């Protein structure tokens, strides 16, 4: 099951990357021809980077930080060299290229000490420092298009979070590189839950990845401080507006993604139920359609009408 979807995802991921690169290339080529026209039209000619990276700049213009950060804060470079064909120079004056994931977290920490303080306790941050491909601020919030999580276009809007996490957590190549085989069926299994189904159908009840795993304080289940540690599940499920007053419930084992197994005399009960119903339904389909078919055919036989 997991395999089917993630394989496609993988391919899609790769295709998308190649596509994106080609597109950017063509884009840059086109823009280098009539960059001056584009700059005039958009009215953002004052941002020197716009001539060549217009899509990113316009994303950035729409983000919450358009008046707070500048390209140079993250990339270096000189914004004052105004756009012209020789503006390639802007990427030379102390230009630093792509910031690393670790640098980004430090950068955001300057203005969002609260969020990053919490984030820096998380497994994502700890593993990021060990050079693993874990999530930095911009992996979840977007790089140039950071929006408030109340904005439906935001990658952290409740209905989009699952896909944001799935980008990595359903990505087998990214996850398989890790030594202990972290599960890559998290989105698939989440899709089977009522939480997902209700929000997909427009229901008000939404518990998504970050509600159970905390958006910033994400921890491995074995960590006693983790929201998904079996000992803390009652508090996590009992959050305000969710299952308030979930008292001393029987969350034994606390499996949400992998379904909890129940054994009847060493047989997996789920397996028994499933196999029972597979047989029943196959039998029923044969029986029902068989009798209908025989009934209809015997009617064509006029002599035999009783």
């Amino acid at each position: 099951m997991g395999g089917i979807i993630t394989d496609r995802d993988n391919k899609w991921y790769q295709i998308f990357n190649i596509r994106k690169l080609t597109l950017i290339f063509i884009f840059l080529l086109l823009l280098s021809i009539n960059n001056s026209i584009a700059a005039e039209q958009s009215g953002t000619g004052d941002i020197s980077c716009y001539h060549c990276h217009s899509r990113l700049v316009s994303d950035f213009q729409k983000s919450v930080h358009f008046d707070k950060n500048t390209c140079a804060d993250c990339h270096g470079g000189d914004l004052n060299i105004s756009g012209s064909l020789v503006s390639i120079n802007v990427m030379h004056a102390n230009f630093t290229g792509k910031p690393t994931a670790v640098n980004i977290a430090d950068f955001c920490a300057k203005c969002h000490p609260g969020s990053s303080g919490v984030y820096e306790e998380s497994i994502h941050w700890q593993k990021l420092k060990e050079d693993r491909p874990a999530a930095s601020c911009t992996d979840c919030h977007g790089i140039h298009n950071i929006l408030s999580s109340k904005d439906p276009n935001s990658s952290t809007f409740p209905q989009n979070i699952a896909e944001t996490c799935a980008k990595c957590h359903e990505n087998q190549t990214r996850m398989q590189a890790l030594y202990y085989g972290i599960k890559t069926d998290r989105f698939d299994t989440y899709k089977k839950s009522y939480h997902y189904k209700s929000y997909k159908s427009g229901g008000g009840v939404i518990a998504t990845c970050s509600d159970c795993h905390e958006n910033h304080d994400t921890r491995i289940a074995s960590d006693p401080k983790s929201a998904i540690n079996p000992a803390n599940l009652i508090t996590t499920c009992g959050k305000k507006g969710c299952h308030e007053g979930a008292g001393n419930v029987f969350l034994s084992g606390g499996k949400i993604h992998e379904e909890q197994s129940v054994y009847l005399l060493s047989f997996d009960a789920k397996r028994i139920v499933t196999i029972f119903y597979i047989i029943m339904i196959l039998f029923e389909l044969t029986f029902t359609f068989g009798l209908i078919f025989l009934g209809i055919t015997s009617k064509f036989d006029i002599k035999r009408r009783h």
Partner: protein
Amino acid sequence: MVELIFKRFTLNQRIQHILFFTSFILLAYTGFPLKFPESWWSSWMIASVGGFDNRTLIHHLSGLVMIGVSVYHVVYHILEKPRYDVLFNLKDIDDFKQQMKYFLRYSDEHPKYGRYTFKQKVEYFGAGFGAVVMGFSGLLMWQPFEAMKYFPIGLIQIAGLFHTWEAVLASIAVFIGHFYDEHFDKFLNMSWWTGNIPEEEMKHEHPLEYEEAMKNRPTGNMEHLEHKENNILITGFGKIVFTLIFIAICSWLVWMSYTILYEAIVNYIL
């Protein structure tokens, strides 16, 4: 033409049947879209009942109605007025064999059914089993955190498993099997509304019961009533509409069973 009319269902039974099938249809209509949230018809069906919260409300209320009717039925028919002719007996096996022989041209003699055919008995007990499974699993899923005070979460997940499978199983039985036999084959069968069946049908479908009733005449359960022939145009048109609806529902159910069977076989058998 004056024809004998036989009473098949009492008013009490007809009301039970109407409540049962209304709640059944509403349950299926508001339940399956949740199981397949990504299908095109899902959002359409949910919108048609006025949104997700209405869907949930309708599902829960219909569930309660169904549980109520089922409990009432058990209390009334088992404790008050038990009937034994609905139980399985050896004749059903013979009937089945004879029916198959007839269908497969090994014999020209149609089996002689009593008040209930073997298929009707299977459907009746299937519905009973289904109501029990759906009722209990549905209640567990309605209030999972209440349920988890007494049962481990694994049991509630199993309830969910039962709920889906049994829903598909019951829908096939009702929307395909029962609907075809009782409402399509015997078009236009109004006995669910009037409680009566005409002599012709009685002779044809329940010959043994007919003989029995005629023997006990006039104390038998029959009335003399005017029987109107159905207008052939209306019947023809009705049949076409019924066929279209029937085919649509069949494909829907077959698609759903294919989807969940495929997934289950991949996960549990392969």
